[in-house]
């Protein structure tokens, strides 16, 4: 079965590119969410296998979204942000890809997320 991912990113242009990359990697993209609250609700209804998460969001932040999502369900997370320091301070073991990113790094990070989480 195809794996599902959701994108938590408030810049839609960047989200478009992430979506393309996810499609290339054979993911079904369940949606893009631009706020923390929407992301939490979205993750709950989609039950995705993977979350691609930006740190800064239109409301709330990516790390808080992930924390709240993890109250409900297990989640594989790859952060894609220009805020590596903040992310790692909040979640020292986080898998993080810096912006500007390239496809190879995203693909490698996703592989890691699936490998780490089993």
């Amino acid at each position, binding site marked *: 079965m195809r794996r599902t991912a959701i994108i938590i990113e408030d810049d839609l242009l960047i989200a478009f590119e992430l979506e393309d990359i996810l499609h290339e990697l054979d993911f079904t993209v369940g949606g893009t969410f631009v706020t923390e*609250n929407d992301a939490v*609700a979205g993750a709950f209804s989609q039950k995705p296998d993977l979350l691609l998460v930006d740190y800064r969001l239109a409301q709330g932040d990516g790390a808080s979204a992930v924390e*709240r999502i993890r109250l409900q369900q297990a989640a594989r997370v790859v952060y894609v942000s*220009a805020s590596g320091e903040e992310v790692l301070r909040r979640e020292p073991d986080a898998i993080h890809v810096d912006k500007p990113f390239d496809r*190879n790094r995203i693909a490698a990070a996703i592989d890691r997320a699936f490998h780490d989480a089993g």
Partner: protein
Amino acid sequence: MTDRSGLPFSAPGVMSDLIHRFDWSATPLGPVEGWPQSLKATVKTLLGSRYPMILLWSEDLIQIYNDAYINLIGDKHPYALGHSIRDTQAESWEVIGPMIHEVISTGTPNWVPAQRLALNRAGFTEEAYFSLSYSAVEDDEAVIRGMLCVCSEVTQQVLGERRLKLQRDLAAKAGEVRPQEKVCGDIAAAISDYPWDVPFALIYLNDSRDDAPLLGAAIGVEAGGEAPGRWPLDRALQGETIELDGIEERLAVAGGPFQAPVTRALVLPLRGAGDTALGALVLGINPNCAFDEAYRSFCELLAQQVSMALRNARAYEEERERADALAALDQAKTAFFSNVSHEFRTPLTLLIGPLEEALATAKGQPEQRKRLTVARRNALRLTRLVNTLLDFSRIEAGRARAAVQPVNLTTLTVDLASNFRSAAEQAGLTLTIACQDLGTPVDVDPDMWEKIVLNLLSNAYKFTFTGEIALTLNRDGDDAVLTVRDTGVGIPRKELPRIFERFHRVEKQRGRSHEGTGIGLALVKELVELHGGTIEVDSVVDEGTRFTIRIPMSSRATAPPAGPTDLDATPTRAETFMEEARIWSSDRGPHEEADADPLPAELDGMRPHILLADDNVDMRAYVSRLLRARFEVTAVADGAAALDVIEERRPDLVLLDVMMPVKNGFEVLSIIRSAPSGAQLPVILLSARAGEEARVEGLRAGADDYLVKPFVSRELVARVEGAIRLAQQRAEAAEREARIQADVDLAHRELALKDSMLAEIHHRVKNNLQFLSSLIALTIKDLADPEAVQRLEDLKGRVLNLGLMHNLLYGVGETPIDAVAFLRALAEESRTAYAMAHVGLEIAADPVSLSADQMVPLGLLLNEALLNAFKYAFDDQPNPLIRIALRRNSSGLLGFSVCDNGSGFGKPRPGSSGLRLMRVFANQLGGELAVTYDKGSQLSIEFPEVRR
């Protein structure tokens, strides 16, 4: 009038005169005196007849006809007399020639029925029909010399039949019951098949409001240009039929078989029931037809039929409105039903939770436990009933969908049925389970299937006192077939058709229990149908009953996509069925409750403060009691009070009931979250509203969690602790931040501010670079030209590289920069970014530090060189290698070079943008770029070190 006594043709009339006067000697017939007797006799007969007749004589087919015939040939009379028909009917000779020849040469008569002819006998071109009879005429020697044609008019019959046919067509339409628009369309379609009889028609419908009648249909004219004011519709609405002449002046329509202008129209009333005015019908009159009594009554009949069709349509619409009103009522009922069911959930929580607690603490008090167990079981039973009702209201509201997934139906069914084994044994019944391996998974919604199986077994059990209950599962073609058979009391024949009706209960039925809602079987039927399946029942009183369910193995194309459904919200608990079954079966009493799980361990010695807002006093007391052991609880009755408490003394967590007076849970949550201090405050919503949507709505509003009533104590405590732990972690992290912040002494504060500004700028730069990079990536998608794609890919590479350089520079934080480390990091990053890990890197450098002004162009130069080498150099090279060198030479200049060991294709193309860029960067550094090529390419530059 000539006196013709003594002449051969004595009949009075125009043609007699003409024939007498005609100079026959100039024709092949010669003078009349010399005509054969048979010719004279035929002419005499002809002139004496009122049927139109014509005689053709001699090989030249000379025409002689009578008065009645004149009308049939129009302006060819009088020339036709004495002339050959070959001349006068030259235009139709191809058709009539062979026929005439046939009759004359063989003597066999011929016949053309209902031939349409344009007749001018009443001052207008008239559509007329004649049946034509052709027969040979012999001379005195019995030799065929000519042909006589006798015409008999059948215009009235033809028109009558045609009009009748239109009326039949209309009648066929009028009988059906359809919406008014459709009726108008159908009438228009029927009428437009008869353009000769109805050159145009307009149907105007009386609006229920007082406005002018509206055009319902237009046939034969453009609908748009029809202003109702043209027609005396008011008079028609009063019941009058109006004949209008000279209408060609206001409406140019051609009609009839000869397409003459339509000059006359009839405006007729359309009458509804009780002679009310439905509207008016305007009919154009065929200009090629006499507007006689028959035509007029045809029009009136037409109007009656249109009226009837419209009456039926109105009746249909009224019927439909009634149906809509009923549907709305039904929907309201369903909504009410659903709400009431929800309302049950709160009291149920208050029943089950405390009962479980009490059971857990009633060890060693068997009597007490027994009573409590009865109470708990009944509460579970009530939950099941409420859930069933909820399922129903969802199905009613059309919100239930089968979330089908491939399931091993055999295993699932055996597991479910096995639940009943001990209850059956206790009751002395045999439970036989015979489930065949179906060979392939079946698309079912497991929750729904569970409800189907458990309801049927529970039903069988309820009505069976001795013998057996047998469940089978088999495959039949593409269907999975489940049967549940019992040897119970059976269902009377007259009850069978109603057995699946909701709330229908078989009267005076003996069962293990008189309790029941009468909806179990109805629910089963609905659930089976949601799977595209069927259910049947057969039963014999005192022998038993068998239910047979048939569902398709693979869900049909019409099945909705799998997804979470509302029915998830009412999980069936096999235990609720079992509990009920056991109490029906046994006077030994239900089995003892297992001890409740111990509550989770206390939080590390702290007593967090929890604010609970719920308007139900029992609920407040219950939840408070549950939490009081390890939390400090403040309970309030509404949202406004909750906000007051938060203001006074911030709690560690807020539990909010959704439905509260003054301010509901969502409103309170939104106020909490809108304050800066409330963003991190954990909030859990409590609601009786189950289901995916409600939960999603809650989370979207910013709740940390969402708990559905009824919940059990352990669940509540676990959720509360989870949320508090998370908040504590967050708070600790924030505190660490704050401590770090506080550690910075005043002297450093300015620097810290600058740092944070730098960090912000750094973040923005990277984000903007990302934006640019994504923009390029999306642009590439739309490009077909490979060269353009390549150019943009290169550009994207440069943007990425800028990002890398930016990161490195930001990380270094101060200048001068260690150039060696910088170049190494950049080269390695770049190699990763381009997926070129197999390319070896050798970096040889003297210790050099550069200012950012020089480091940036040098980095960009390196990037271009690497990009070029990655792309072109290593096609056939098994051990690709790039050497980078930065050396200080004897003249004090810095020498920088990048070489590859490739096939030589790495040599930059002259004029390429890459090469141009490299030259620009070289100039910025104050040097000249040199490109050499020898078993690979080498890019080098010497430049002065600028010191600040």
